């Protein structure tokens, strides 16, 4: 007993000194005299790849089906059914991960991290919606994306968001995309996944902060159609641009617009554009001057953004764990803070000199200077482009679904009398409803 006590005291002293040198053979594994057999360590394998490929197949199928339902069948009910299916399949069954929105970061990481290569399935999740959008518009958003689906499902009483608010809020999504790509490419974090507001619902649990954020978004979503898709989704803004170029697209009317205005308030997402005339005579001159001014402003915005992003390089770099660690260790070593953190303790057990860490972190910091400038320039470019787009007026003769904003949800079809005509229901159906 005395010896046992002694050993304990020594060991406790060791413990107090926290000398965690890992995996040493302090006690050689015994040779057993009995016929005892050591148990082997179980290693349950992750889900088979095959299911991932099935998921990718289902995604492609759903995309094509969505295109068919939105453009050919023009059935809101069918689109809604497909959307619910996607919500269950990609959301609750696949637990919302890896999703198309997050895959942007995997692509960015592949491009910049030599050690990482994107798995084929994630690549499909990234590329397939883009390709389909190039052909058919944003049918992915309307019927396949589980994040969109969960918001669409909760939309009960849509209110109109004023145009100016929508325009400025949408900048958030571009900033989010830029930041997501920047931090993923430089290996800091996948912030789009970290702050994915809905994945917690799909998994029925998770970080409470994020769950609360998601719940708030869904509460807003009861009244504002798809707030995440419109104002935050980083993938959505890529799809916006692709959708502008799509070969085919959603049209409110199956054939000719009769300008009956019945569809005017049909879209809960504010994506229906009324016909426009060119600038009225008195406005035209001012508009031309304004356009010229904005054209001049454009490069300045890009340069200013790049400069701002460069200035913020250190703040961006702090998103990287290595930089945060270096900063912490430096604060500790220069005596500016007292005590240590788990991270700085872990660093010290490695025995690496802090200078090495600083150099490594400074290297990362330099990359963030370049990345930050590009990111800032991108934001400036987007803002400039947005201002220019708002300064020109395109003639539009019909009521149209805005190519960029339309989610291809199919809500507007039934507002069009021509659609009813097409369905051979006649004018009556609309009147009867009224």
């Amino acid at each position, binding site marked *: 007993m005395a010896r*046992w006590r002694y*050993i*304990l005291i020594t*060991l*406790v002293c*060791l*413990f107090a000194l*926290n*000398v*965690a040198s*890992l*995996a*040493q*053979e*302090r*006690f050689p*594994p*015994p040779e*057993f*005299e009995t016929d*005892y057999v050591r148990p*082997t*360590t179980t*290693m*349950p*394998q*992750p889900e088979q790849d095959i299911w*991932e490929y099935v998921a990718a197949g289902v995604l492609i199928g759903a995309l094509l089906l969505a295109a068919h339902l939105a453009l050919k069948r023009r059935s809101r009910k069918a689109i809604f059914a497909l959307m619910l299916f996607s919500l269950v399949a990609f959301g609750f069954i696949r637990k919302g991960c*890896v*999703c198309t929105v997050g895959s942007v*970061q*995997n*692509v960015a990481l*592949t491009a910049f991290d030599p050690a990482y*290569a994107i*798995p084929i*399935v994630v*690549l499909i999740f*990234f590329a397939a919606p883009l*390709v389909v959008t*190039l052909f058919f518009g944003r049918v992915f958003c309307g019927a396949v994306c589980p994040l969109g689906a969960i918001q669409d499902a909760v939309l009960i009483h849509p209110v109109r968001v004023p145009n100016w608010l929508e325009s400025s809020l949408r900048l958030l999504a571009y900033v989010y995309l830029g930041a997501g790509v920047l931090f993923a490419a430089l290996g800091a974090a*996948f912030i789009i*996944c*970290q702050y994915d507001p809905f*994945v*917690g619902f799909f*998994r029925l*649990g998770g*970080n409470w902060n994020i769950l609360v954020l998601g719940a708030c978004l869904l509460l807003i979503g009861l009244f504002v159609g798809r707030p995440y898709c419109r104002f935050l989704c980083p993938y959505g803004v890529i799809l916006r*641009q692709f959708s502008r*170029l799509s070969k085919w697209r959603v049209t409110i009317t199956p054939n000719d617009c009769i300008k009956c205005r019945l569809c005017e308030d049909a879209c809960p997402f504010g994506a229906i554009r009324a016909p426009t005339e060119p600038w009225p005579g008195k406005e035209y001159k001012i508009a031309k001057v304004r356009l010229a001014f904005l054209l001049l402003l454009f490069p300045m915005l890009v340069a200013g953004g790049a400069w701002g992003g460069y200035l913020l390089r250190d703040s961006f770099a702090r998103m990287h*764990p290595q930089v945060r660690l270096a900063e912490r260790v430096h604060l500790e070593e220069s005596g500016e803070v007292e005590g240590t*953190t*788990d*991270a700085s303790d*872990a*660093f010290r*057990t*490695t025995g690496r000199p802090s200078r090495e860490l600083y150099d490594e972190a400074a290297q990362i910091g330099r990359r963030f200077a370049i990345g930050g400038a590009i990111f800032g320039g991108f934001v400036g470019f987007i803002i400039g482009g947005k201002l220019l787009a708002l300064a020109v007026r395109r*003639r539009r003769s019909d009521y149209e679904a805005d190519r960029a904003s339309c989610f291809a949800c199919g809500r507007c079809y039934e507002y069009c009398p021509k659609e009813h005509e097409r369905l051979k229901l006649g004018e009556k159906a609309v009147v009867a409803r009224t």
Partner: protein
Amino acid sequence: MPEHNDNVTRRRLLRDGLWGACLAGIGGVAGFAVAKGRKNDWVWQIDPYKCIACGNCATYCVLEESAVKCTHVHAICGYCEICFGFFDPESVTLDEGAENQMCPTGAIVRKYIEDPYYEYTIDESLCNGCGKCVKGCNAFGNGSLFLQVRHDRCVNCNQCAIAAACPSQAFKRVPADHPYILKTVDHA
């Protein structure tokens, strides 16, 4: 709107060009990614040689019950009678009662094999991945207890929430066909 308007055809040409460029862009990204070449998926795993058993694994996992569990490689284990993964170093007796156990959930099963050796196994249904036993075993023993992401539980988030909170940057992506990093005898 007259279709053969000069302005319109120019715009259409521009649009078609952009369209082609976008498609080519996607193709380029896909081609680049495929050329980088790997068929396998990635999964998250803990490098046991970096892990400091801080306890974040028990609390940061998106799953209510963490996907990280203690793993035991018996080949390294010293089968110590006094195991500091099992016993609190301050315990007074070698009684297996709750007051002396390191594990807060009682997930380590201690079994007598032969004098003076005891076998320790992890009851995974009870383990919460807190790493208390890992700390003890690393500090005083052979380090045969360590934390691993158990892939029957892990949902393989694109950004692992524990990885984002890991102080020693021990979490990393590993190929799905070699999803575990077990400690081995020769690495000391």
